[in-house]
Structures are given as structure tokens and as C-alpha cells.
């Protein structure tokens, strides 16, 4: 069967203007959201602090837990539902000492709900480690962008590389913006998703760029805009199919993968959608833009 009939001619290049406006707006919203919220809501891996995962045997609500933890140092902690009768308690304090944990959590919980609960996970990260991690993460993301830039520049041309990298930055900014808009915690899982999307999105871009290069060779006299259009149309079927299979697996992760990797699956969902979109609509116009710029330079020299 075929989703996309051969010989399809959608004028992508003609619609790129709208795509660029759309992307610029999304990017601005993403950045604005991060700024308005005063930065990202960093998880303990980056900010330091503690998370404690508690599972109750009976029906429980975050409010009841908050009530029970009143007048302990966990009073102002973030309590969020994490599966059925399961909750995450998050605080910026480092609960390294078991005594602190017993005093502030176990004793009040036992008083309020008897022994009908189980502490299933405790993670404590010192703030110093968090800062280290933040720096390393930013460094690693930027390095991986550069690595992609150089790889494409080496395999193709520099302007192709630039198109690819701008699409990547666009994807990462939008994932971060979505996390920020939804007030989700920025965890190490989300960072992992970002790395995956960097690899994935550049993948899509390469397939299109590869076709552009091939078509340029086949028909060097054709206008680049037409070549780009032809190439996107030729690879459109593949782009949609691959995105669809990856999307299927990510959906499975999101629905059945359990709460621990829920944020990973969610950011992958966002990333797959925008990664596919950007390789068609963002990286190609940039290649075209650089081409036109070079052309006008040549003209001026004449």
C-alpha cells in the first residue's frame, strides 16, 4: 500500500515562509516561557535536593499527605501524584541523614496513616553535584550540535550543515519550551530525550539533504528551489513512514512504560513531531537562503 502517491507535487518551498513564521513564533513562545517562569523548573539532578517516592495501600491524595507533613521540614515540598496511590515528594533539601528522613517523613506518615505505605525510592543529590551536572549538560548539548554541524559540513556542504544545525537548535528549544509551558520538571530523562532527538532529527534532515545533493548532480541546471521541492516530495513517503514507526514506539512507551520514564516518553513525543517537521520545513529553507545569498553576491561582483 502507499500513503503518498508517487508523482506528488506539494509546493513546500512556496509554503516555507509560513513555516518559518510559525517556527519563529514557537521559538519566541518557548524562550519567553522559560524567562517568565524564571528559568526551568530543574529536577534534583541539576538543582540538588531530594525526591522520595511513596506508595500507599489505600486511597490517598496529595492534600492528605500535605496535611500529615505539616510542621515538618517537608511542609513546603512539592507533592505530586505518580501513578495509582503513589506520590513523589520533592524538596530542595538534601536528606542524606536517615534521622532527618525518619523525623520528617516516616514518623508523621505513620502517625497519620499507620504503616500502610512503602517508601519505594529515595534520591538525594547535593547542590554542588547539581551545578556540575548543569554545566556539563549544557556543554554536552552544544558539543553535540557542533559535532553534527561538522559531520554534515564534511559529508555535504557547510550551508547544508548550517541548515541542519539550526533545525536542531529549533527542536531542542521547542522541547524545552514545552516542558516549561507545562511546568514540568526538567529531569535527566528529558535531557536524554533531547540527545535522542538531536540524533533523530538530523537523521531526517540528512535523508532530505542527501536527495537534494543527488538531484543537484542529476540535474545541475534546475533551480535549487525546484530541486528542493522535488527532493522533499520524493522522500516524503519515507519521512512520514519512519516518523510513524518511531512515533508508534514512543506512544507505547508513553502509555505502558510506567511513571518513571513518563517524562522521557513525553519529550520524545514532542521531539519526534517537531524533529520531523523541522527537517522538512526549517533546514531546507536555510539551504535555499544561503544559496540565494551566494547568488546575489556573485551578481554584485559582476
Amino acid at each position: 500500500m502507499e500513503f503518498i502517491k508517487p508523482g506528488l507535487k506539494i509546493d513546500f518551498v512556496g509554503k516555507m515562509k509560513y513555516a518559518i513564521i510559525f517556527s519563529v513564533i514557537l521559538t519566541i513562545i518557548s524562550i519567553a516561557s522559560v524567562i517568565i517562569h524564571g528559568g526551568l523548573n530543574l529536577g534534583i539532578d541539576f538543582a540538588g535536593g531530594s525526591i522520595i517516592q511513596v506508595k500507599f495501600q489505600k486511597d490517598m491524595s496529595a492534600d492528605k499527605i500535605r496535611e500529615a507533613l505539616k510542621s515538618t521540614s517537608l511542609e513546603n515540598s512539592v507533592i505530586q501524584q505518580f501513578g495509582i496511590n503513589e506520590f513523589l515528594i520533592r524538596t530542595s533539601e538534601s536528606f542524606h541523614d536517615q534521622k532527618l528522613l525518619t523525623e520528617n517523613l516516616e514518623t508523621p506518615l505513620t502517625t497519620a496513616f499507620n504503616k500502610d505505605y512503602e517508601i519505594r525510592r529515595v534520591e538525594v543529590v547535593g547542590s554542588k553535584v547539581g551545578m556540575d551536572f548543569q554545566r556539563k549538560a549544557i556543554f554536552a548539548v552544544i558539543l553535540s550540535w557542533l559535532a553534527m554541524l561538522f559531520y554534515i559540513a564534511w559529508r555535504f556542504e557547510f550551508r547544508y550543515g548550517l541548515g541542519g544545525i539550526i533545525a536542531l537548535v529549533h527542536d531542542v528549544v521547542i522541547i524545552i519550551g514545552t516542558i516549561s509551558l507545562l511546568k514540568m520538571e526538567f529531569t535527566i530523562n528529558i535531557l536524554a530525550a533531547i540527545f535522542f532527538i538531536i540524533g533523530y532529527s538530523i537523521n531526517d534532515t540528512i535523508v532530505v539533504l542527501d536527495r537534494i545533493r543527488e538531484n543537484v548532480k542529476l540535474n545541475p541546471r534546475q533551480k535549487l528551489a525546484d530541486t528542493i521541492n522535488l527532493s522533499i516530495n520524493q522522500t516524503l513517503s519515507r519521512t512520514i513512514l519512519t516518523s510513524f514507526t518511531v512515533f508508534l514506539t514512543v506512544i507505547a512507551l508513553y502509555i505502558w512504560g510506567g511513571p518513571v520514564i513518563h517524562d522521557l516518553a513525553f519529550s520524545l513525543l514532542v521531539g519526534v513531531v517537531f524533529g520531523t517537521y523541522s527537517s522538512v520545513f526549517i533546514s531546507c529553507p536555510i539551504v535555499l537562503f544561503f544559496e540565494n545569498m551566494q547568488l546575489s553576491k556573485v551578481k554584485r561582483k559582476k
Partner: protein
Amino acid sequence: MFKSLKIRISITAVVCLAALYFLIPTFITQIPSPWNEYLPKEKIHLGLDLQGGMHLVLEIDTEKALESMMERTANDLKESMMENKVRFRKVERTKGATISLELTDSAGRATLDKLLHDHYPDLEIASSTVREGGQIINLKINDKRAIDLKKLTVEHSLETIRNRVDQFGIAEPEIVPEGDNRIMIQLPGIKDPERAKNLIGKTALLEFKIVDDEHSLEDALRGNIPEGDIIAYGLRADRSTGQRGSVPYLLKNKALLTGASLETAKVQISDRFSEPNVSIKFNSQGATDFDRITAENVRRRLAIVLDGVVHSAPVIQERISGGQAQITGNFTMDEARDLAIVLRAGALPAPVNILEERTVGPSLGGDSIRQGIMATIIGSLLVIFFMMFYYRLSGTVADLALIINIVLVLGTLAAFKGTLTLPGIAGLLLTVGMAVDANVLIFERIREELRTGKTIRLSLDTGYKRAFITIIDTHVTGIVSAIFLIIFGTGPIKGFAVTLIIGLLASLFTAVFVTRIIFDYFTLNFNIKKLSI
């Protein structure tokens, strides 16, 4: 590459069988005895997030080790200066790891220089100022030596912690250095995280010090501490109420004997209260010293100090030969057992701080495995059905490659003792989505070629050849981004990157090499008129 079908089929068979071979212990729990000699023993290693356990990152305070080394050096230097009749006002360790000393006449300077040169090669003069009636000299340790010392401290700490964990009896612990002064510890399946933390993080510096009964404790508590003395506190439990209070002691600062002189330590149950205590045995030098110390200090009290806390301060009734002693102090059985372990394993050369701690209970780990496997099965089936539906028989060929891919990833993990984590399972599922990409690229290309009216053989050839360049590029970039994640990430997240990389490499083999064999086999052996694609 390899023209002969037979060779290609054999390669595939060998690779698949090898992967299955390494997976036998993971999927078959009971192997009949004549077989298990020839089979691998290792199951796929599960990460702490899947099997439960504790992950710790410790930082060794190497600065502290340097400071206490300088403290000892300052004391030695003081004695040497007195022996060599260098007149001085004071010698002390100042802030950081420096020694400040004040000479009262400049004639001493030459002797001091010679002394430093002959006996203290590690010290350097950082600055010296001539003042009326003498000079002030600041000494520091030379940089290279300081670095060596810090390195040694970390190595020694690592060794000590390994010893302690070994003696505690945890299966498959992982203890590795990280960066300059950090140690990463993974303890799978630990039941009592607090106890483990105490056992690992306790400095366990055992010292024997004489109680200063000549000076008044009250006076000292008011701030009037006699020269060479310190105040230390001891825990005392009230037997009737069970409450623990703290009691001050005035001690001579000089440690007469330390835990370094121990040969062994073990738990004993005392006869009187049937309470556990720790009985220690000194090594031969330690026994001689202990004999001498007790002989010199009969009727005085000897404080047993552990990490600055006085555990007991019994009166020395008589000279003790034989090198045996007991540490009492209201221990529970577990506390006594752990104390014996840390004393046997030795003291840490410097205090440690816990930087990071993650404990996952076994029930959460179990849930995660179930959910991870569930998602993987459903996700894979969705992709498999989709490919069959969209590409018919060719899709089924791609599905076969996909299944081989999953087997190869798991087999590689088992063979190279990689760790499977929850994000790792997610990575495996994502590879499933990505691996069919190669086949999609190839199939789409073949369809295009067929449309131009080429024969099946020619279309297959061109399709594979054209798509291959693109496939290499997409795989390389995917692997590069995952490598960045490995360099940066820790624990579970590393597992995500590792399965992604293995999966991408495997898909180069399965999606390109293996599927081609199947197509070639059928097109060469049967007269196929129409390709089901």
C-alpha cells in the same frame, strides 16, 4: 561485499547463534548439569533502577587529609627544633595546609634550613619576614607532593571502602573512582541503606588517649584548656531510662596508639550484661606499645576514642600484656558487627561526604521491569504489524530483521556484561522504531526504481546501493549523539545511550545485510515476477 550467498548465510547464522548462546542463562534458569559447564553463567545485568539497590557518590575530603598530615608534621618539626636547640616562640599549623613558625633569634635560621633540607624534603618555605627579635617563616608542602598525597588518599580510601563492603557481604558491588576525588558505589539489593551508608562513610579513626586528671575539667569547659589537651565527648546511656546523654572528658591530645596498630577485631558478647562488645587484638608492634603504655599509666584512665567520640575510659588497673582490649559502649548487635568490620578494614584516611544517593526499593524495580517489557512488546508488535501491512512480504522480511536486531542487542549486553536499565529498555524500543527506518529507506527506493520499469534484480541492487549511503549517514549521526550522552550521563541514562548505540550498529547488520540475503535468495532461486513490496 560477499558475493556468495552461502558465506553470507553462514555469517548471519554464526552471529545469531552467538547472541542466543549468551542469552541462554538469562532466559533459561535451570540448565541441566552436564550442559552448564559449556554455557555462559552471566545473566543480563540489571541496573539498580530495575533490581533495586543503592547508588552512592562520595567525595573524599583530600584537603582534610593534607591538613592532618601538616598537623603531624608541625608537631614533629617542633620536636626536631627542640632537639637541635633552635629557639622559637611558636610552631603551628595555620589555615589550610601551611605551617607558621616564629624564630626568636636569627642564628637559628641556618640550623632550621639544614633541618628542613635533611629531614623535611616535602616542605618549602613560602615566605619569611624578618621582624625585630626574630623572624616569621611560613612553610607549605610542595605542590607535586601535595598532589601525590591527595592521589594516595583517594586510592587508600577506595581500598578501605572495598574492604568494608566485601566484609559486609554484598553480592556484586561496584566501587569505582570517578574524577579526581570521587568514588561511585553501587550496592544492588541492599535492604538497609542507612546501615550501609554508615559502614561506608564512617572514618573509623580509633585512638587511645590518656584522660588528663591533673587539670580541672570544669576549668577547661570554661575555655581554659591546658596546653596539649582537648575536650572530647562521650556517649553514655542510662541503663534505667535508656536515654543517651553526652559526657565531656579532658584528654591529652596526643594519640598513644591508633587503629593502624590493630591486627583484628571481632564481636563478643560480654558475660555480665550479655551485651555485644568489640574485642580487638593488636599486632605485635601494637601489643608492645600497649604493654608499655599501660605500664606507664597504671591508675590513670585510658580513653578509647572513635572518630572523636569517647566510647569508654576505663581505669588502667595494671599493666596489660598480650595485646587484647575491648570496646564497650551500648552497641546493638548490628552496630557491634559493623564496628568490627570497619576496624578490621581500617580507617579512612580522610572524611568523606555523600554527594549523591539514590535508593530504589525492589518492588519499584519489579514494577519498572514489568512496565518496560510491556511497552517494548506492544511497541514492537505495533511496528511489526505496520510493516507487514504496508510492505506485505517485504515488510515481513524487515520484521524478521527487527527481531534479530532485538536478539543481537540483548545478546551483546549479556556477552559484554553491559547493564540493562529502564531508560535502556526505552532505548531498545526506540531502536526498533529506528531500525525499520533503514528498511523503509531501502524499500521506498526499490519502489521508485521499480516504477521506472527496471527489473526486480536491478531495482533491488540500485535500491540497496543508493539507500546505503544515506543509511550510513543517519546511523553515524545517531551514534555520535548517543556517544555524547554516554560521556555526559550517569547510571540509568548511560544505559539508554548504550542500548541505542548497540541497536544502531546491529541494525546496520540486520536491516541491510540480513534482509538482502533473503531477497537475493528468493530472487535467485525462484522466478519471481512481482515483488511483494
